[in-house]
């Protein structure tokens, strides 16, 4: 009867896979073994797996460090193997499987995967990075009260693009280290697409803020958009870089989003003074071209202010108590 022996890492990742048709398989550090392990904690002749016509049985060859079932302390010597058993020898692990051991159902090739792969297409990738760099430079130009020349814009544009490339690089590095496919260009492509989406959401927020009064909830709702974008980005980072279960991927993406926005929120909260004399209002201004809202009358504006007076009056009374 055939037997399959898999060398696996501590994290149960597959290192090597061997199929044997003989009755005895020897495992050890010695070069005469059927499976040669390089772990120094493994003896030259460490164990054999023998078929007695009915069962496969583990025989410890009086090794120094012994062999155990799973990660546990239960000695494996004389154990009758069932398909899928994991045996620890020294600091290494092997998994013994019989033919026709059940395997997971195959994953269908999704059109979604093709869409993601589009992000690494050289044209798509470079266009996205270029858009990001141009927008960064443009915003730097807008915020600079003096006249600026091209070189002065180039430095922050290129600098910021490089800084923002660090995140996909880190994700790729981690997936590479955890024995996954690094897919650096896909990660880069996806990240820059989403960075550019945040510019769009920034503009949308400014547009709504400019065109609505303080009574409107729309600008507040639009503040959720960057959070959604960040979640999608982290989810895709996980999807591209790691084989994770659906729930796990959602949990990780949600935690990263929480860390990013929650952290930012905490920093803001810790910096907030107990009392501020500075009025806090929305100062968003866009050019007249983006003004689509209908104007209110002076009377309506004054009428609205009644609510403000009520609010501060109540606050003053409360503080007084």
């Amino acid at each position, binding site marked *: 009867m055939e037997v399959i022996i898999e060398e696996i890492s501590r994290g149960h990742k597959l290192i090597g896979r061997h199929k044997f048709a003989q009755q005895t398989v020897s495992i050890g550090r010695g070069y005469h073994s059927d499976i040669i392990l390089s772990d120094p904690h493994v003896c030259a002749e460490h164990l054999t797996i023998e078929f007695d016509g009915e069962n496969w049985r583990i025989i410890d060859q009086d090794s120094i460090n012994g062999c155990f079932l799973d990660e546990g302390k239960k000695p494996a010597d004389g154990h009758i193997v069932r398909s899928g058993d994991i045996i620890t020898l020294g600091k290494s692990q092997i998994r013994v499987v019989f033919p026709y051991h059940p395997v997971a159902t195959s994953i269908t090739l999704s059109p979604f995967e093709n869409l993601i792969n589009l992000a690494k297409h050289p044209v798509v990738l470079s266009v996205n990075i270029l858009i990001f760099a141009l927008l960064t430079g443009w915003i730097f*130009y*807008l*915020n600079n*009260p*003096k*006249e600026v020349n091209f070189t002065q814009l180039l430095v922050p544009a290129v600098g910021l693009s490089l800084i923002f490339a660090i995140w996909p690089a880190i994700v790729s590095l981690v997936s590479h280290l955890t024995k996954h496919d690094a897919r650096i260009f896909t990660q880069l492509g996806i990240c820059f697409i989403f960075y550019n989406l945040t510019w769009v959401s920034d503009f949308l927020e400014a547009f709504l803020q*400019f*065109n609505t*009064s*303080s*009574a409107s909830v729309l600008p507040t709702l639009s503040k959720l958009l960057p959070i959604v974008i960040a979640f999608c980005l982290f989810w895709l980072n996980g999807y591209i870089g790691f084989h994770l279960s659906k729930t796990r991927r959602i949990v990780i993406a949600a935690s990263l989003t929480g860390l990013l926005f929650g952290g930012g929120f905490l920093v803001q909260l810790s910096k907030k003074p*107990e*009392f*501020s*004399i*500075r*009025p*806090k*209002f*929305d*100062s*968003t*201004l*866009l*050019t*007249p*071209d983006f*003004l689509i*809202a*209908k*104007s*209110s*009358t*002076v*009377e*309506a*504006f*004054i009428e*609205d*202010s*009644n*609510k*403000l*007076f009520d*609010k*501060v*009056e109540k*606050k*003053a009374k409360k*503080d*007084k108590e």
Partner: protein
Amino acid sequence: MKRFIGVWLIIISSIASAAEQAETLFKQLAPSLYQIRLIDKASGEKSSIGSGFQISGDGLIATNYHVVSSYARHPEKYRIEFLDNQGKKSTLTLESIDVINDLALVKREVQQPMAYFTISDSVPAKGEELFSLGNPHDLGMIVVPGTYNGLKKESFNDRIHFTGSVNSGMSGGPVVNKDAQVVGINVATSGNQIGFLVPHDKLIDLVNNYHQDNSLTIDQQMSKQLNEYQANLIDRLLKSDWQLKKLGQGIIPTIDVPFIRCWGESNADKSDALMMLAVANCSLEENTYITSDFFTGSLEMEFRYLQAKKLSNTKFYRLFQRQIARVMPGNKAGKDDVTEFQCQHDIVMPSHQLMTTKSIFCTRAYKDFDGLYDALYLSISVDRNDQALLSHFTLAGVSQKSAQAFTKQFMESVSWK
């Protein structure tokens, strides 16, 4: 030559007589003059000093409100003490205040009727010689001769312009005519030889009110006075002529009253500037002192006209946005005095239909004075690509009604040419 010597003699004799007069006056009045000190209870040391003078036989002493303001706001922390010309000290009680005219009445205990200052019943003539008494910088009681120069024109509250040195510490001291009658109270200085006095009639009013009704607490008196004052001021402003003036391509209002003065500035000399800027500022040149870190009663208006020169419209508005984010309130006030500002904003078009603006209105309430607020308004035109007009005002210590009426008038007055 003879005539020359004659002139000299006249000058010398007049100086001698003024000095003599001052000396006699001082000797005669000294027992009714006091140094008023606020003693910090915890440390036992004086935290502020001023002058005061007795105005009745039974121990009523007049001084400035700002001399005893810390006590008025935190009576648990301080006590008021006087020091007389013989070096005697004793505690005073705070009886009544006039926060608008910066006056206060304190009282000492007296065993038998004492000498006191009489308050003049007439206004001095312009150019009349007056004598200011007080204790500058804790150096001892002095007398400063000076001249009455009428009431200050650029002031909503009456203030006498006195040509003579009024120094800090002399605050609350009396200013008398040559008959030793009080015609004013030292209150402020504006540098060399320019002093300001509270006219004596304000003191007469305060004393009369005090004798008629002294049931109100100090806080209630302050609240009532601030309320009446703001109502008078805003009423006067709204009834005055709002003159429309040109600022760049914009039209802005200035209020035609002597106590609001305007100043202007522009960057027309800077040829390399990215945008042309013209600024006009108008403000009430006085405010009401509550404590050293709480002022009210102020009014400021500011207008800025901007025109893009070498700029894209997007950048023009972007830079403008950064400018307006830095607006601050016009008066000093702290956590214990006011709430935080609450703001609203909207796109507004006044009834003249000439301008569309993004308007922002903020207000905060006073914690100790019911129904009083600070208001802050800021508005930016958003209907021209390369021109913008910013209009802004702050009002301190006004009622909701006053604030809203003023805001309405102001908003309707700003437009394009």
